[in-house]
């Protein structure tokens, strides 16, 4: 053996040791192919992705604010309808002389009360019948009650449960307007409506 071959073997050893110290990347080792178009596309996609995420977040926040505003508006609208609904419910209806039969105008007013009652299932009402001052005071108490009963029967026929409606009469004892003459009497021949209990749905 000659000396020159032994030296070469030592140089290889040293070289190998130096490679091992540098960390070796795991996973597939792809060689970047240094393709500029792909790189640009990749960069553009990332930007687009970020943009769309941001836009989606903004839209979500806007939608949340919109729905809050809509809720507030609806609540305000409901509050006004509540007042209108009460007015419709309490509207007085009128009768012809000596009659308990419902006039067309009375039926129209009663038709408007039906949906108000249907949408407020806990609400009960009292219907009080009145008469004008002519006729016997005692018989007028019965006539007033008959007016209230006819009114109740119409509401029941239109779907309101009978147990939600009380009937009462004050005859000629509590005129809406004092005095004599048809102008006054026509305002006293009436049925009045008073909510008793329950309220909103």
């Amino acid at each position, binding site marked *: 053996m000659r000396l020159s071959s032994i030296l070469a073997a030592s140089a290889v050893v040293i070289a190998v040791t130096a490679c091992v110290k540098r960390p070796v990347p795991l996973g597939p080792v792809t060689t970047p192919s240094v393709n500029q178009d792909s790189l640009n596309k990749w960069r553009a996609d990332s930007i687009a992705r970020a943009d769309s995420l941001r836009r989606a977040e903004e839209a979500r926040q806007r939608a949340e604010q919109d729905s809050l505003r809509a809720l507030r508006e609806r609540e305000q609208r409901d509050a006004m309808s509540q007042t209108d609904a009460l007015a419709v419910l309490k509207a007085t209806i009128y009768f012809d002389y000596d009659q308990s039969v419902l006039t067309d105008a009375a039926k129209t007013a009663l038709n408007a009360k039906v949906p108000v009652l249907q949408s407020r299932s806990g609400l009960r009402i009292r219907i009080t019948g009145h008469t004008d001052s002519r006729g016997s*005071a*005692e*018989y007028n*108490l*019965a*006539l007033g*009650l*008959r007016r209230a009963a006819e009114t109740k029967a119409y509401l029941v026929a239109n779907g309101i449960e009978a147990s939600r409606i009380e009937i*009462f009469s004050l005859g000629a004892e509590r005129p809406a307007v004092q005095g004599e003459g048809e102008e006054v009497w026509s305002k006293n021949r009436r049925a009045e409506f008073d909510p008793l209990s329950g309220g909103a749905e």
Partner: protein
Amino acid sequence: MPGDQTDSVRAIIQRDLDYDDRATVVALDAPAARAMIPASGDKFNYPLFAKLGVVAIIRPQIGLTGMTVSMYDVATKKLIQSGNFSIPGEVNGRSWRMALHGVSDEIGRWIFGKRGAARSRVLYVGTDGQVWVIDSDGANPRKLTSMNLALSPAWHPNGNAFVFSGFTSRGSQIGLYSFETGDVTWKSATTRGLNITPVIAPDGHTIVYANGAERGTDLMLADLDGDAEARRITVGRGSDNTSPSFSPDGRQIAFMSGRAGHPELYTMDADGTNPQLLTQYNYGEQNYRASPDWAPDGRLIAYQSRIAGSFQIMTIDFRDHTTKQLTSDGENEDPSWAPDSRHLVFTSGRSGQHQLWVLDSESGRMRQLTKSGGRLAAWSPLFK
């Protein structure tokens, strides 16, 4: 007769005998009385009295414990009747006046064989919508109830209580008011709805009243004492039946009903059987007959009927159904018989406001009873 108390006594008795309408009272003021009647003894100037057409002289004398009333017959110039009466209470107080009314009624019995009706009171509804009571001569009006509204009072036959229709926040119920306690107890617990126009049967143990519900207004019969369920005694079928009035023997009830299409009067047995039309059907006219009241002697039923557009007081004979019209001016309603079955109290608008008036059904004579308004009157029985 001298003395303030005696004049007041004379004024009250004189007025009672005048209101009684059976005798004509010759009212003597103090000077005339002094001229014609001796201060003591009974040496009356009979020939002078006879010339005036006087048939009897009534002389009350106040003593320490009460009074003595003597009656002298002018024709025979003799004392023919005398009585002692205790007059309790403060002079001119309520019980003092009512005791004097009893004296007047007794004098009426001396002369005519039947008591007068002065010892009585009238219940009514005042302009404030409460039940009031007033003496038969118009004295001592007094409010009795205090609630939203109190209507249609009707006496208990013992004169010590009455029923009425009371409106409170709980609705309308039949109340029983006791004069002894001033309290109201409620008597229509078993019937919901409108409870109105009650009366107490002559036996004092049963009430009949009208109950209004979806089916119409029907008469109900119930025990006044106890909690038994009320019983319906009119037909229902959507008609309106109100304002019952018992016959004095308690066997029948007169009432008002719209079953014919307009209000008429009917009678039925007290258990609700055998209803009959009482008032006659007048063809060609829309009748309206209301508020029957059966006289204490059973013969006539008073009521109101619409005649030429206004209500007038009528009577109908229960036996032969003959009718008589008693008023003709203005609006006259809701008659109630006095215990003498001759006088009636009723509501009239003739003075502009609703007031109670008293009418003599035989002579037609009228006097105003209330000054501050009144309607729906009920005349009491004679107080014991």
